[in-house]
């Protein structure tokens, strides 16, 4: 009799625990839902759209002839096919490094100078705003990165190796957090980026507005801060590893619907 009561109590306690856990997840989901209506990424999107057609830089030109891989001036659909190989630069480029190329060739800006500028300031802030608008122009489209060029295939393979590369003081690699299903850090769900993590998850969500610091984060900054948390040294803007990782994640995300720019914690 007594034992039964005890077991009953224990079962009750277990249930209560499970319920509390569920309500935490529900509460967080409810919070995220509330934020979706009115994503401040809109502010950056509007800024990027205006920057695209504005005559600027030493050559006083707009970016309207910029080729993002779909032909000069074509913005819609470009985001879901990047990174890709560009014959004029003979390089695989992601959206941001490609934008910097256009700002240099069309507008006369100094590409190296922009690459050195901290995120969120000067021309780098403009690159982020432009990337936000260009990503938004492919909202609802599905990822389909080209892999027909040898350089694109090599970028994928280098990216995969960089993804699993362990180092630093804490022995972390990208795969430490993003190599398995259903894991989280604190309350943040961690997408498994070694495969297609699903519509609007992982690569298909960035650029994103970060509510924790009120900043617009491009994929370059997303990767930069991943490496910071990994306790790695500093990855250069547009460096080979960052672009190869984007290729790896982008190819893995084939068929995933882009919701970028998203809103994140």
């Amino acid at each position, binding site marked *: 009799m007594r034992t039964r009561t005890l077991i009953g109590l224990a079962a009750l306690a277990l249930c209560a625990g499970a319920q509390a856990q569920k309500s935490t997840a529900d509460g967080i989901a409810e919070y995220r839902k509330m934020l979706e209506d009115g994503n401040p990424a809109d502010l950056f999107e509007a800024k990027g759209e205006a920057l695209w057609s504005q005559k600027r830089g030493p050559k006083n030109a707009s970016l309207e002839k910029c080729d993002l891989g779909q032909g000069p001036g074509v913005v819609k659909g470009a985001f879901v096919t990047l990174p890709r190989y560009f014959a004029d630069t003979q390089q695989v480029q992601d959206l941001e490094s490609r934008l910097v190329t256009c700002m240099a060739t069309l507008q006369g800006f100094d590409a190296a100078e922009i690459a050195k500028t901290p995120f969120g300031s000067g021309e780098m802030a403009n690159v982020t705003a432009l990337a936000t608008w260009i990503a938004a122009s492919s909202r609802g489209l599905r990822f389909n990165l080209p892999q027909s060029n040898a350089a694109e295939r090599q970028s994928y393979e280098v990216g995969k190796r960089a993804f699993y590369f362990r180092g630093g003081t804490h022995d972390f690699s990208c795969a430490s957090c993003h190599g398995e299903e259903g894991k989280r850090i604190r309350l943040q769900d961690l997408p498994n980026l070694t495969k297609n993590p699903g519509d609007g998850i992982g690569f298909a969500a960035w650029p994103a507005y970060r509510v924790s610091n009120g900043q617009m984060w491009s994929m370059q900054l997303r990767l930069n801060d991943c490496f910071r948390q990994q306790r790695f040294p500093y990855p250069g803007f547009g460096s080979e590893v960052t672009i190869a990782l984007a290729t790896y994640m982008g190819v893995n995300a084939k068929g995933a619907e882009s919701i970028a720019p998203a809103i994140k*914690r």
Partner: protein
Amino acid sequence: MQTRREMLSRSVTVAGLLAAAGFLPTSALAAWPQAAFDAKSLADAVKALGGSAPVESKDVSITGPDIAENGAVVPVGCATTLPGVKRLLLLVEKNPNVLAAVFNVTDAIEPNLSTRTKMGQSSNVYAVAMMGDGKVLYAAKEIKVTLGGCGG
């Protein structure tokens, strides 16, 4: 009832006096209710806005998530089903200064507003309705703020 214009002109006078006395108001706007925004409690904030002691009421509602993943942005809303509301306030009990927003409501809008506030920690959040007849009614809700991310 004091009109907004009267309030403005009176505040301008006060600001002028303060400036003359060497106290520079931190606010660029004379009408901004500094004392209310300096208040440390619900009662003090309402008092600074000229209101009576607030009474809990089912006719006022406060909306927000049960848990906020990040205290930097917490979506909150305040509303009332009663006619004749003059002001709706939003307050966060455990913030250093409790008052977040004062909405001076007219008949041309619904007495139902939403915004987003910062929360330093888990806390009660209040919606307050200051009515035309002098009544001050409020509703409270607890919002938990969790620690997110890698914490570094």
